[in-house]
């Protein structure tokens, strides 16, 4: 009808939506980058201030140092290029005359990569629009959201991710080099001011305070090349070295040199590690560099991730906008679509907040070292996973879990037998079913407590009963040989009722005709079981098997209440191991990595089962 009028309108609407998406990407990315820079610089300033404080005011003065007392006083001090080039920090209440300058990052990485990202996103958006227009032109009757646009949206997301990756790489390199240099310089300041490096590090909460090799003054350490280069690169501009003594003054734009301290600072006397660069003498602590470099790496990874996510989000938004624009010509469909999404929002929000969010958080945590009390997780990459591969205790826990899972087939066999035996509507059978089902709906903690009491060596009902029968007592839960088996027996007792009910539902779904036909065909009870019941229950059996195995891999309550993983780690199962790692040893990164490894194992098992089932279904 009015397609001639409507078409340009839709096109411009799509363009506006696209532009909004692009702007969102850029704003988010720029904001993240800026905050990361400020954050990194702030961390440097804190450390430097802490080091300074160690020299001047003592350990207790450090408390509360961070935050209010450190203020940014200059944003464009270096004048070396566009954008913020240097930050100066004033450690306010300590000494009004003290200024610490932080050198600007080298101006290569991000500035090169950022346009690439923007171009990539713009290109992706352009392809989306083009694809959409083409799809519209191909047939006016075809008003459904075409697949090609969905594919293009995916392409847009992928392109953005790639660009973000590239950008990250450049940004990462420059930032780590810069922070390494800053860290080195901060340590230098402290050393020049006469602080003991180990003490300074401890006050600044740096891990290398525990590095015992620092105590060895004779050892020769080598600075990382990046640090040397960074120092060398920035020395010409930033630092003046007085020829007479080795005191260092920092020449940031408005910052006066700390002349009051200069006389006392006998750097040559106390500095344990020195490097010659550009004719000047630099004092460096190696481990600090590494740590600070890591800190920088961590802080750089997140804006890149955010950028990639924002790119994806923008892609989705564009797709969404196009979709809605297309639906605008069909108000009823549009209304239905909006209503459907409106109804989906609460559930989706819950899933994102309580399922997807924690899931991603745990994945993120698994890449870090985090003890809950740390201010910021330390990025380790895949170190946690790598360490787990050779962690014997972890694999022992996995082995225990696998062993425990062997109770599943036994329980299923018993449950199937019970399901067949207790079929029917007679009163006694109904009571039997109820009794068998009860453990399944009882609290695990209650069950565990009762069983613990029953199985106790000294006053346990079972042990005393066996003794009375003259069979001698069994150390149910106190021997490494029997503890896991005891738990397996209780596990069987717990799940059999539930499995039985599921099996009965499955049995009821098998048509009686099949049994009749088999009887006329001459099949006896066993053959009917084998050829009718088992194949008819195939899906039920599979369902119970998979859910039981997953449940078995997640066993926790029984172990927690009854054995606490003992004796001698015989019942230390995976989830309990993870729990202890997180809440007893406060190794959350490790625990998260374990959780993900466990997930991979369970997922693989389930997937194999599905494949197996599919194969059977396909080939008979």
């Amino acid at each position, binding site marked *: 009808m009015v397609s001639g009028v409507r078409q340009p309108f839709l096109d411009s609407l799509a363009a506006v939506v696209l532009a909004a998406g692009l702007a969102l990407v850029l704003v988010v990315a720029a904001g993240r980058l800026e905050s990361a820079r400020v954050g990194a610089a702030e961390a440097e300033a804190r450390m430097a201030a802490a080091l300074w404080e160690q020299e001047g005011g003592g350990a207790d003065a450090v408390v509360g140092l961070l935050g209010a007392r450190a203020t940014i006083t200059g944003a464009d001090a270096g004048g070396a290029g566009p954008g913020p080039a240097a930050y100066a920090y004033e450690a306010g209440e300590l000494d009004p005359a003290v200024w610490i300058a932080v050198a600007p990052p080298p101006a290569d990485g991000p500035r090169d990569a950022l346009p690439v990202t923007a171009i990539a996103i713009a290109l992706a958006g352009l392809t989306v629009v083009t694809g959409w227009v083409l799809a519209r032109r191909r047939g006016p009757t075809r008003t459904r959201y075409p697949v090609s646009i969905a594919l293009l949206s995916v392409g847009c997301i992928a392109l953005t991710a790639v660009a973000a990756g590239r950008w990250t790489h450049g940004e990462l390199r420059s930032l780590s080099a810069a922070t390494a240099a800053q860290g080195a310089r901060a340590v230098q300041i402290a050393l020049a001011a006469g602080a003991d490096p180990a003490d300074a590090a401890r006050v600044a909460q740096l891990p290398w305070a525990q590095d015992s090799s620092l105590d060895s003054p004779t050892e020769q350490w080598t600075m990382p090349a990046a640090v040397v280069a960074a120092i060398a690169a920035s020395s010409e501009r930033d630092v003046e070295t007085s020829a007479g003594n080795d005191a260092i003054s920092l020449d940031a734009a408005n910052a006066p040199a700390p002349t009051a301290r200069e006389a006392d600072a006998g750097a040559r006397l106390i500095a344990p590690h020195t490097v010659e660069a550009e004719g000047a003498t630099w004092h460096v602590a190696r481990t600090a560099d590494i740590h600070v470099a890591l800190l920088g790496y961590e802080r750089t990874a997140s804006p890149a991730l955010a950028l990639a996510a924002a790119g994806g989000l923008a892609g989705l938004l564009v797709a969404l906008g196009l979709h809605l624009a297309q639906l605008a010509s069909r108000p009823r469909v549009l209304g239905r679509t909006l209503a459907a999404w409106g109804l989906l929002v609460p559930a989706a929000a819950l899933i994102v907040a309580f399922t997807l969010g924690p899931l991603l958080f745990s994945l993120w945590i698994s890449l870090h070292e985090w003890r809950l009390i740390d201010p910021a997780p330390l990025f380790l990459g895949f170190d946690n996973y790598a360490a787990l591969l050779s962690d014997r205790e972890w694999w022992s826990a996995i082995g225990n879990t696998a062993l425990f899972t062997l109770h599943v087939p036994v329980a299923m066999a018993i449950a199937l037998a019970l399901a067949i035996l207790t079929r029917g509507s007679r009163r006694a059978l109904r009571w039997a079913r109820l009794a068998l089902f009860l453990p399944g709906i009882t609290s695990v903690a209650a069950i565990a407590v009762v069983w613990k009491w029953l199985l106790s060596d000294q006053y346990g009902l079972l042990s005393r009963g066996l003794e009375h029968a003259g069979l001698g007592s069994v150390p149910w839960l106190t021997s490494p040989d029997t503890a896991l088996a005891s738990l397996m027996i209780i596990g069987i007792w717990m799940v059999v009722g539930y499995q039985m009910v599921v099996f009965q539902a499955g049995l009821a779904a098998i048509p009686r005709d099949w049994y009749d036909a088999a009887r006329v*065909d*001459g099949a006896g009870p066993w053959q009917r079981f084998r050829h009718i019941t088992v*194949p008819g229950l195939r899906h039920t059996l599979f369902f119970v098997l998979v859910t039981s195995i997953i449940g078995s891999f997640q066993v926790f309550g029984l172990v927690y209440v009854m054995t606490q993983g003992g004796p001698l780690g015989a019942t230390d199962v995976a989830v309990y191991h993870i729990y202890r790692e997180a809440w007893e040893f406060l190794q959350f990164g490790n625990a998260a990595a374990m959780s993900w490894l466990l997930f991979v194992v369970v997922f693989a098992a389930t997937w194999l089962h599905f494949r197996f089932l599919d194969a059977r279904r396909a080939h*008979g």
Partner: protein
Amino acid sequence: MGSVSRAGQGVVLRGVEKRFGDVVALEPMDLEVRPGELMVLVGPSGCGKSTLLRLIAGLEESTSGEVWIGGRRVDEVEPGARDVAMVFQSYALYPHMTVARNLGFGLRMRGTPRAELEQRVAETAAALGLGELLERKPGQLSGGQRQRVALGRAMVRDPGVFLFDEPLSNLDAELRLRTRDEIAALHRRLGTTMIFVTHDQVEALSLGQRVAVMDRGRLQQVGTPAEVYRRPGNLFVAGFVGSPPINRIPLFRDDRGRLAGGPFVLAAPSSLSRATLAVRPEDLAVAGPGEADGDASGGSTRTGDFRATVLRVEALGSEQRVHLDGPGIAAWVARASPALRVASGDRVSVSVDWERSHLFGPDGRRQEGVPRPAEQGVSR
């Protein structure tokens, strides 16, 4: 089938009764199915015909009475050992087995040697045109193909008695007709005893050598299709068999000892206080309004037995169904030749072929003898 089948086994029921608790599913009954016969059990749903079939198969146990198959009493014999094969309404194919394994399952359960089993499966599949489908599963077959597999599963065992439990009711109309013919042909070829359960009286009459009509757990009549149609033993059989259904009118004894109702006054054949007159639609002859003498089929009177108003005419091509209206004959239908010219609203004269009419007593039983109009029978 390679081997020419042995003649079928006779099936004899003596006083067989089935109760589920207090509910009587089958009242005690006697029934004999002769060797090689195709007997159809027909009746409305819930009449007990399927229960009777399951009793013969051994899937149900009778409360009392005896079941004999091939001269052997089988009440204590397992279904698999009764020398019967059954085709179910749902076909009851084993869904996880291929067609070949479905066909061979019964033989396998009996420990038939593998070579023989494979040969017989192949022969049966060839006979039914299932050769291409042997490696498929039931889920991949059409309704008609499944039906043939179910048939093949029964055939492959070469049983003494075939039992069919409404095997055609899940097929569409065309396929049902074709399969019905196939089953009839199969019966001619194999000569095996077959007991076929259906609720469709047309199917029963067209397929059965003899038909057993059942209602409410009771055997109503056993006879050839012609007997059942032409000489229904009681009112239920008369009403159940035939389409469109037989026309009926209740008659009461008047003060002159005649049976009267609607337009009819009949000479009472005996001391009946009331009775029901039943006439099949094809035994009514309708004369068009223009014809002075309303008779086409050599009826007994010149001017017709009664006059009625035409309510509606169904022109079916090969025949016309004339729906009549009048006191006591409101739902009557007459069959007429397509040549007859009538339209709704016409007054027509209708003759009754009394030789083919039926009179049933107050208990529903057939009264022997031909109903006759009394001397002044035609009232209007």
